[in-house]
């Protein structure tokens, strides 16, 4: 880009913004833990992308006996399939991430006394 206002001489009508500070925010006490949470969310998106592609491929093979990249890209799910995928996605999210919702108020340090 040339600047906010032009790209290769073409006007964009852009004006410089005032940047947010959120990239520098630390909520988890250690910025690397914040980063790790971002990574596990990003990995979930990668996994779901692969799962959805596989679901489409399975359906295309079942229907047409062949599959091409274009067929995958342009596939439109039926309402029934879309609902099924939503349910699968929600179940995956719950299965993978519900541990984040665990109440850790009773967490014990690794060297806490053995109780028995």
């Amino acid at each position, binding site marked *: 880009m040339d600047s906010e206002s032009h790209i290769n001489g073409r*006007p964009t*009508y852009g004006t410089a*913004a005032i940047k947010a500070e959120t990239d520098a925010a630390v909520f988890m006490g250690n910025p690397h833990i914040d980063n790790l949470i*971002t990574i596990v969310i990003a990995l979930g998106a990668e996994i*779901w*992308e692969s799962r959805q592609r596989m679901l489409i491929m399975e359906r295309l093979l079942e229907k047409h006996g062949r599959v091409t990249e*274009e067929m995958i890209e342009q*596939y439109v799910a039926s309402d029934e399939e879309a609902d099924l995928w939503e349910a699968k996605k929600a179940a995956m999210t719950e299965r993978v*991430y519900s541990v984040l919702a665990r109440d850790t108020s009773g967490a014990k340090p690794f060297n806490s006394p053995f109780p028995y």
Partner: protein
Amino acid sequence: MIKRRTILGAGAGAVLASGAGLASQANAQDMNRWGTDGPSGLGQRTDTEGEVYPPGTLAPRGRFGRMERLPTLELESRQNFLRSFRTWVNMSLSAKAAERSNQVLRENDLPIDAEIPEARALELLMNEPLPQTASRAWLSSQQLMWNGLREEFEGRVEKYLGEMEAVDNYGGILELNPELDIPKYARHEIHIMPGGYVESPVAGHLYHYGTNGFYMGRNDNDEIHIGAARRMAIPADGKVKRILDLGTGVGQFAMALKERFPDAEVWGIDAGGPMVRYAHLVSTERKLEVNFAQRMAEDTKFPDNYFDLVTSYIMFHEVDPEATRKIMHEAYRITRPGGVFYPIDFNTLDNPPRTAYQQYRSYMDHRWNCEPWTPKWRACNPQQLIRDAGFDLNTEGPVALPRFGVLNATKPA
């Protein structure tokens, strides 16, 4: 059937209008080129104008209702996941964080059903793992969402610029003003959207696809904007011939108003040039003759008493207090006697006490989701500002947007 991206092959140059009324109106033949249907069938790589997509690229992927699908399944799937994840965070994870917040209040002998000072709420919760994890997950998913969209739209910016350039002179008026002095308050990266509403050449694309994620699947076809437009108050005499939507963004509410009042002259103005340029692209595709201009709401340039209806759709909480006051006065100036001013925004009347967790979330939204002016909006007494501008205030409805404020006003005859 012509698809939006076919215009890329047309080689149309960008000739921008820089004043109301200067943009040309498309003739009927040209307008007919703008189909709104997506492609059907599998494997379609060309359109009615011939080979448009180079080997190794994919044809457009059609639409889901009004929205053109994102250009690749990869991006679409990831965005869908992030949308679902956001929903889970806002429902399940936040519910657990709120439970933990109540537990913390009880441990400190504080009431859970009465509002405590915000500083105390933050002090209690800022080091609590569950609320902090909920905030981290919410903002990380949002950052990933923006980054994914940015990679596509800014990564192929010349392609998307070309689409907008090709329709700059079709449809309704488009006024872009590179000389507009955009004040600092309007240049923040609201919702941590990269470049805010003003910087990225594809800010409109980012905003439209990004905020659809915010609505968690409930607004992919402008359902919420259309509902608000249908419930919008109108002047007692029923005359609605001219409408202005302030801070129109990508024009969803202006277009919804045009659909309700098809014979009205409808304008949408916004500080963001790329935003109104995208709004124009979309309205042209939809064959809705809505006029868009890059102007400030505190200085609209319209004549006195020009509009029957002046609206805004959740704009004011993104505006600083001084500009808020000026905009109220400007709205009064351009509304005709008997006309209606309806600024849809967060409720500022009779709000119930906020729980400690709600206060914590509000703070996180303000500080880390980059909502600089929301607390000021809640505190600025907009109902008094509306009266001070000269309007007769109405707080009885109609409720244009459920769960939001009902402040609206009439300019005395």
